């Protein structure tokens, strides 16, 4: 009797720390259903869609034709690799500049002698709370010499104006300009994560290090940075994934075509043009090609994310 009740107790996860059985299943099921219906199924279905041609109603199985077209058609493949390459540059700006700035800001903000931390922290985070369409449009106006050349030159800041085409009108500078606006807007996110990570470091460690004679730079490079490597890895993955899904900043500042001359075309805008909206002005989308683009990118992202995860996670 007593044994039986103990079993029952164990089954319900009572006093035992590691109860056996599959009692945990029922806690997982709601989330699992949610995940399968709203994430896994649509994702797999999109892979299936890439094997079809046509839009809803008249869909035809075409095998790998969409992939063949994506990688061999002169125009489509040119656009795809162009967008892919642009996306790496866009990512590099964020990875190097945004995350380095994030770590620097976080190191300064968590310095024990820092005053007014809350104020600066808020200041850095504010751009993240503004809609991309708004910041993008504002920067688009600000970077156009038509509107800002005269006032900037009057203020002695003429070097900020790119004459005559404007930063966004020159195929050589447009992608950098768009990337920098995005870096400016989102630098608050890694900053917050690094602040939290730095704050999690035990003060005793730093204290011990300073007693042993380590200077501030040594403390930073030998103790604080190694201790937040898992967070750096997480931030790197988030940057990677969100940059390869980027769309809005280009949409707001340049056109869906990634003007000028496709120099700001990213995978996101390319996918939207082919898969969702269709090329202007015909406007008949090709969901099959769009899915082929997203599936290919998904496979490529996976190749980047998995090694990063393995390398940076699990180092406690």
């Amino acid at each position, binding site marked *: 009797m007593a044994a039986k009740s103990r079993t029952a107790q164990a089954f319900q996860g009572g006093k035992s720390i590691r109860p056996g059985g599959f009692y945990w299943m029922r806690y997982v099921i709601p989330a699992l259903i949610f995940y399968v219906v709203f994430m896994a199924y649509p994702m797999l*279905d999109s892979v299936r869609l890439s094997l079809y041609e046509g839009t809803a109603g008249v869909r035809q199985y075409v095998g790998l034709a969409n992939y063949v077209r994506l990688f061999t058609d002169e125009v489509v493949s040119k656009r795809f690799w162009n967008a892919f390459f642009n996306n790496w540059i866009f990512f590099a700006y964020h990875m190097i500049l945004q995350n380095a700035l994030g770590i620097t800001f976080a190191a300064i903000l968590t310095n024990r002698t820092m005053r007014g931390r809350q104020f600066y922290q808020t200041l850095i985070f504010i751009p993240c709370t503004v809609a991309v369409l708004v910041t993008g449009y504002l920067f688009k106006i600000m970077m156009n*010499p*038509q509107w800002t050349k005269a006032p900037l030159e009057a203020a002695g800041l003429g070097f900020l104006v790119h004459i005559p085409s404007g930063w966004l009108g020159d195929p050589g500078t447009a992608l950098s300009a768009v990337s920098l606006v995005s870096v400016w807007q989102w630098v608050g996110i890694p900053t917050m994560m690094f602040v939290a990570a730095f704050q999690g470091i035990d003060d005793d460690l730093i204290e011990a290090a300073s007693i042993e004679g380590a200077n501030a730079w040594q403390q930073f490079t030998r103790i604080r940075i190694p201790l937040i490597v898992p967070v750096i890895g997480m931030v790197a993955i988030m940057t990677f994934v969100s940059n390869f899904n980027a769309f809005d900043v280009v949409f707001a500042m340049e*056109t869906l*075509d990634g003007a000028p*001359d496709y120099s700001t075309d990213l995978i996101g805008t390319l996918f939207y043009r082919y898969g969702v909206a269709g090329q*202007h*002005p015909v406007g*008949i989308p090709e969901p099959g090609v769009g899915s082929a683009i997203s599936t290919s990118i998904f496979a490529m992202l996976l190749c980047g994310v998995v090694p990063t995860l393995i390398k940076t996670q699990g180092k406690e």
Partner: protein
Amino acid sequence: MKKLLAIALAALMALLPVMSLAEGELTMGSWRTDDMEQVTALLAKYEELTGVKIVFQPTTSTQYNATLRQQLDGGIGPDLFYSRTYTTGAELYENGFNVVCNDIPGVKENFTETALDGFTAADGNIFAIPFAAVSHFVYYNKQIFADNGIEVPATFEEFLAVCEKLKAAGITPLSNGIAANWDILECVLCGMVPNYITAEERVAYEKGEKKLNDEVWVRILTDFSKLVPYLPEAFASIDNDQANVMFGLGQSAMLIDGSWSYGALNGDDYDIEVGFFPIPAPEGNAAGFSLHPDFGIAGNAASAHPEEVKAFLAWLASVDGAKVTAEVIPEGFLPLINADVAPEGSIIAEMNALGEGKNADRRFVWNMMALYTPIVEQLNAICRGEQTPEGAADVINATWEAELAK
């Protein structure tokens, strides 16, 4: 499963307004939410005349195609719907959703071939009643013209002289830019083309009988390139909205844009006096006029009220119906009917008068959609000084030959 869910949701959303309809009422779908007032007035007039009530149910422009498609697929589409022209409009017909309009009284009599062209499918059937067209004009600031003693130019050469004179006076002649990737082709180049080729010649180019790098085309692109020095310095960063704002604020003397912009340019936002004229033809060429069919009204082949739908389409195709339409149509949209229906003294009448007696044709690229993006790319390159008119013509011709060979 997903498709089923989508259809069920679309059905539910579409049913909500339908359920509130009384017996015998028809619905009309549209992407022009801006036209609520005007179209409601038109439909009220129709109800007054015939007793048939039609309810206007527009959806957001960007979602119109998808929404309409789902409604039609699910058998719950509106009885009447706005139809796009050419390929996009024809696609719905090819899937059997449109009432064939060949036998609707008035269609063959009251519309020119050019007007019907945009609503004719590959098999020759007419899939919608032509409703409104747009044109492309040079808008000019009357004050700046008067201050500099400038008259409206009659030829392209005079037009260039006007630009030169304005530039010498320190005024930006044109506010057009290339950042939007569409208006430089749709408004500027397509506005120029009817001055150089007729509708018949256009068809010859479409069929490949004439080469897109012949003398005429090199001439068109060369004349286009002559406009580049008169664009704003930062033209590469200026999109269509900013070009409109520049002109509206008086920062440029002229703007080449679509007729649909007239209302906004002449509206309360700006404090300028606006005049307009078609891009003039070069000396020795017969002046053309760009008149591009923009949208039509189609009947739903699966409607529960087929007789009423046909009666309404016939009314739209009649001169009487077109007269009522012309009174309520938004400024800058021109009736497509081949009769004098514009109210006297109206902007529509003024715009129509500019095209009188001229070779009217639509945007030449609309039957060669594969050329749309390549031409925009070439025009941008010409503007940036990276391409010559001859080089651009060669690329465009090669692209079209490759497309025809497919």
